[in-house]
């Protein structure tokens, strides 16, 4: 059995990346993800890697773009405002079809938000894309430190396999909550070589590679580029959708949640079951591609859906779209942040406690 350590989600992200062979990290400080660049700055030089502290997130993302073009496994991590700054570069990475991984440890709100408090308010931006040009990125949403570690390995594999950007979406609670993590190395299928990498033509087959624009790569024809990308995205949809279904076979209420909220929701489901209420949990692990069919089937079996997310309601849109109006969909959003005794949390802090979810479940199942 692999070594077990007690680490938080952020360190698990960094360790997971290194175990996936990522030796190059480009990043900029922002709360609540600082443990990732700090860990990388300490550990990468020991293994012959490179840590570069950039001058801003816009530079980080272009270092990642350059590093991906150079053929290395590269990554950066950031939090919400920094992720906004990266949107232009993300669009360019998508255009160039180079593999890379970006981690967004979400904090709450638009703008400066609450300056680093917990929240899940980037769902729409991360899954739908904040940059220009109708691209897609695979989005993984770990809900434990172990999954942070495992998903980083998966993220680098998927990025290389499909030559896409993979976004790993965690949040303040997942990032800063310490849990036991088994440092296991996951096995993946072999990947093709990166003969397209920019490193000087003598280091390859003597033939040069150059990149100007996606349209240029596809004979100057944008429709051909989009046709190719549609095929790539379809392949991803066909084989990479991941989700967890928990006690949902006989459920009469399906709770849908992701990330840290899914931890609370899982507890709430157990509490409801102890009361004899048949609640079940559906947790999308890939937020894109979204497990539309699986959500619809589980929702139709249960007959009723409750979405729990620490935001004013973003995941709920995807759930409603998947369910196609066949069953009612309720939302317990950020206003579900009451203390278990009933008083509203006034500061930026707080979470949707399982007790609050249970109360909602009682009204529905």
């Amino acid at each position, binding site marked *: 059995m692999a070594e077990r350590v007690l680490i938080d989600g952020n360190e698990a992200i960094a360790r997971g990346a290194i175990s996936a062979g990522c030796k190059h990290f480009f990043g900029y400080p922002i709360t609540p993800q600082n443990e990732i660049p700090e860990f990388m700055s300490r550990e990468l030089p020991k293994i012959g890697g*490179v840590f570069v502290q950039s001058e801003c997130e816009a530079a980080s993302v272009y270092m990642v773009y350059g590093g991906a073009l*150079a053929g290395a496994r590269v990554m950066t991590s950031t939090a919400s405002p920094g992720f906004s700054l990266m949107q232009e570069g993300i669009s360019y990475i998508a255009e160039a079809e180079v593999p890379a991984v970006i981690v967004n440890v979400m904090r709450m709100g638009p703008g400066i938000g609450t300056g680093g408090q917990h929240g899940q308010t980037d769902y729409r931006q991360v899954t739908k894309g904040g940059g220009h040009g109708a691209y897609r990125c695979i989005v993984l949403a770990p809900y434990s430190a172990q999954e942070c570690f495992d998903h980083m390995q998966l993220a680098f594999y998927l990025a290389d396999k499909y030559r896409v950007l993979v976004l790993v979406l965690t949040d303040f609670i997942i990032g800063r909550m310490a849990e036991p993590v088994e440092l296991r190395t996951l096995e993946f299928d072999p990947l093709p070589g990166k003969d397209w990498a920019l490193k000087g033509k003598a280091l390859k087959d003597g033939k040069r590679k150059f*990149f100007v624009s996606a349209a240029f790569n596809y004979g100057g024809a944008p429709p051909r580029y989009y046709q190719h990308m549609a095929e790539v995205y379809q392949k991803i949809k066909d084989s990479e959708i991941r989700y967890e279904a928990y006690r949902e076979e006989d459920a009469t209420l399906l709770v849908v949640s992701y990330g840290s909220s899914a931890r609370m929701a899982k507890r709430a489901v157990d509490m409801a079951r102890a009361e004899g209420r048949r609640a079940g949990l559906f947790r999308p692990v890939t937020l894109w591609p979204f497990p539309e069919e699986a959500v619809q089937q589980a929702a139709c079996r249960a007959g009723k859906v409750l979405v729990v997310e620490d935001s004013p309601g973003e995941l709920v849109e995807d759930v409603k779209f998947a369910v196609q109006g066949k069953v009612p969909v309720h939302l317990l959003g950020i206003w579900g942040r009451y203390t278990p005794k009933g008083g509203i949390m006034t500061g930026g802090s707080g979470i949707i406690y399982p007790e609050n979810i249970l109360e909602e479940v009682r009204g529905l199942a």
Partner: protein
Amino acid sequence: MKGEVVTREKVYGSPKLRVPLPFRFFCPGCHYGVIVRLICEVLEELGIEGRAVGLAGVGCSFGPIPVAIDIDFTACPHGRAPAMATAIKRIHPEAVVFTVQGDGDLGAIGLGCFMNALLRGEKLTTIFLNNACYGTTGGQMAPTTILGMRTTTTPEGRDPRTTGYPLHAAELVATMKGVAYSARCTVHTPGNFRRAKKAVKTAFQKQMDGIGYGFVEFLSACPTNWRLSPPDCLKFISEKMITEYPPAEFKNIDVSELPVEWR
């Protein structure tokens, strides 16, 4: 040069690295074509074409330059070439990595990115093409537009009270600690072409020797947007551009000038 046989091929022929293209990318009288040739010659003479990686900024360098030089090359988003080059160089230290950037790219949208690459003391080379305007988008004012010069966004001429003053990149770059070489050149006469070639060679050599950042600024004609004929452009460079932007070597340090512990 004594004893050297001057052949027609040597004078008029294209460098081996220059990719023959079925159509013209640059406007008649534009200096970019000359500078592309110069870059090809330098890469060949240094024998580094096999490990060279080029990055072109947005503007008239975006498409044509990556296509025209037979080495690994990528076009970059506006102003971001130094960040991308940083990563490529850090990942492949044996590669010779350089950027080709225009004045809008390097001096406006990408000034922060460029300055920070210098501050980090990256071992890169930058060829900066200063034509005093935004060429591709139709001749708008650039950070390097000369005072009084008419552009499509300074129709009455550049006025420092509303648009500030021209950017003197080569002088500014020379003040930065991580920089090993900074020079300004022109290619508007054969003599200047030869001097420029030597400067570019030195700027690459500084990177290859691991001393620091190499930077060469070119004053480059833009007949289309200057609304001048190619011969009048040469006159404009020698009379106006050179007065504002004197060609010179502003910095040239070798390894013995670096602190011993950081060599």
